[in-house]
């Protein structure tokens, strides 16, 4: 319930007579933004399907999800950071470094496993540095993660000076394979969604929401804000490491600048998905809709034979529009809820 608008604006106690009114009030109180995001994603999906010759198969949806999987993983972590009213620019650097390491150090099954763990550990470690500086020293998230983004980018360029290298075929094939007739990419997304649904009920998640909606209040209520922020950025770093693995699978090679272009989409997916930039409201389910919207947008632009550069421009516009639309929707809703309550 914490991730709903209604926590602060109550429609007032209702008697049985006012049941309908209460129901209406509850609908108005629950955050409409994730639902709006799913409507948008569905509209994009139908447009895309209409542009495609023939019918849609599970396999095609699998390809779509595989295309967006690295972004979804990145956005899962970014979304949790944004719940605390922060931002994590360093996910771009961690992803770049991860793909650079994968392309240079994965030689067989053994080394791929070992280095996958190393990449995830680097993500968690990088997140810990961010988390300590932001949580304990109270520094601004954007400047701290800008600095660590620069550091990880630099290391990635030292590891792999230009895009290239290869990852073993067996590793990269996993993402396009099927398990029980369903593409692995879809399984991965379902597992992430399930993990999120479990996570959002845990005490850690409650503290993250609390810190995001009112830091001082959370502190007064006994929440260790420094430790909560540390956990948040470590989760984000871990997600960035995992996203690097998915990215390496998809491209079957490495790119020391891959992450730079994914920072904006990771934030955009979260914002389109209805998570508030001011913290405390939203979640991964809406973010998935944001990821699908952005991924399908790229495919629609491709299907329309437009230059792929349009995606860069459109992503930027969508981010700003989503912030504005989300803010406007939220204001309208609050106003309606207030009117309903009085």
């Amino acid at each position, binding site marked *: 319930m914490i991730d709903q608008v209604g926590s602060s604006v109550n429609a007032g106690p209702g008697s049985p007579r006012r049941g309908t009114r209460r129901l209406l009030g509850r609908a108005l109180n629950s955050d409409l933004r994730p639902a709006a995001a799913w409507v948008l994603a569905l509209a994009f999906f139908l447009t895309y399907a209409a542009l495609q010759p023939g019918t849609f198969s599970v396999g095609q949806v699998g390809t779509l999800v595989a295309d967006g999987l690295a972004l979804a993983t990145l956005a899962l972590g970014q979304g949790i950071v944004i719940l605390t009213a922060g931002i994590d620019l360093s996910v771009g650097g961690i992803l770049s470094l991860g793909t650079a390491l994968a392309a240079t150090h994965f030689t067989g099954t053994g080394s791929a496993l070992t280095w996958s763990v190393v990449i995830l550990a680097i993500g968690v470690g990088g997140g810990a540095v961010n988390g300590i500086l932001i949580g304990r020293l109270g520094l*601004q998230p954007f400047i701290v993660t*800008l600095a660590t983004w620069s550091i990880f980018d630099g290391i990635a360029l030292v590891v792999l*000076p230009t895009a290239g290298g290869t990852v073993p075929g067996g590793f990269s094939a996993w993402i396009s394979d099927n398990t029980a007739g369903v593409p692995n990419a879809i399984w991965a997304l379902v597992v992430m969604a399930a993990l999120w649904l479990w996570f959002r009920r845990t005490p850690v998640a409650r503290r993250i929401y609390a810190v995001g909606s009112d830091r001082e209040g959370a502190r007064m209520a006994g929440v260790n804000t420094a430790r909560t922020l540390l956990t948040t950025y470590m989760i984000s770093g871990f997600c960035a490491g995992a996203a690097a693995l998915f990215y390496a699978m998809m491209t079957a090679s490495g790119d020391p600048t891959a992450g730079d272009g994914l920072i904006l989409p990771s934030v955009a997916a979260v*914002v389109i998905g209805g998570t508030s*930039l001011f913290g405390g409201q939203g979640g991964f389910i809406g973010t998935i809709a944001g990821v699908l919207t952005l991924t399908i947008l790229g495919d629609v632009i491709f299907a329309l034979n437009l230059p792929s550069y*349009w995606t860069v421009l459109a*992503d930027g516009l969508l981010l*700003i529009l989503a912030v504005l639309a989300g*803010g406007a929707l939220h204001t309208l809703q609050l106003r309606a809820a207030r009117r309903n309550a009085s």
Partner: protein
Amino acid sequence: MKSLLARNRPVVAAYALVLVLAVAGEIIAPGFLRISHVDQLVIEATFTAFVALGQGFVILTGGIDLSIPWVLNGAAVLLTTFAGGSSAKMAWLVPLLLAGGALIGLVNGLGVTLLRVPPIIMTLGMSSVVEGALLLYTNGGSGGNAPSADVYLATHRWGPLPVVGLVWIAVLVAATFALSATPFGRRLYATGLSRRVTEFAGVSTGAVTVAVYVISGVAAALAGIVLAGYVGQSYLGMGDPYLFSSVAAVAIGGASILGGSGNYVGTTAGALVLALLAAILPILGLPQSALEIVYGCVILVAISVSSGRLGRRRESL
């Protein structure tokens, strides 16, 4: 005099760092401080100094401008494409490009103030929009060669003095005057220290905020024009290093990243420090990419130190 030094301790420290690095360079590689190489260093520091001028003003108000690299890149590409090697065309192209930078800054500023989009999101989105527009315009290819007047501006020397160094000095004087001796400067610092209190004092903090983003757009366009002359041409991605370096130069210069304190005299030292590091790293056998690691570390150290200072100042109140 003593209190002036004490008040500007971070700036003094930044200049001390310039000296230390310069001497270290001379020790590692004799001839490092010969006039021609110093000129070279100054020229290379200029680009960072220009972008850091805008970034510094934005940071003074507590914001950040992530759109600098692509505004710079856009100015460079459009200059080389439209001039087509003709120096005469620069007479109208340069003012037009600076105005274009101002326009992008204006949109950023209005988005931040009127529409209340957080600065990082507004400028991140704007960066992507400008990048996309530029990619579409050039179709992913590179721009043409820089006109000779631009090359002259960026590389020529009058005696021992690089031409562009003189432009830098003019910018330094103008920025310092604007910050320390005009109502705009006072409003800028006040906005950075406390937006609310400044509003209560009857100052339109919105106008101040829009102004700093406009300055940042113009400064980035100027950097792009000069950089195209230095490189001799334009290419996509040429602005990429200047996001990190602009923030790093401001941070080394002793500005508080939370806004409200700092000046361009410090940022000037910051740009020189970065140019010296960029020259020293290859001598030590480190790749250019190590510079990005240095930028990041420098920013982290600078903000940790300044936050410690802020903490002490709060305690002493």
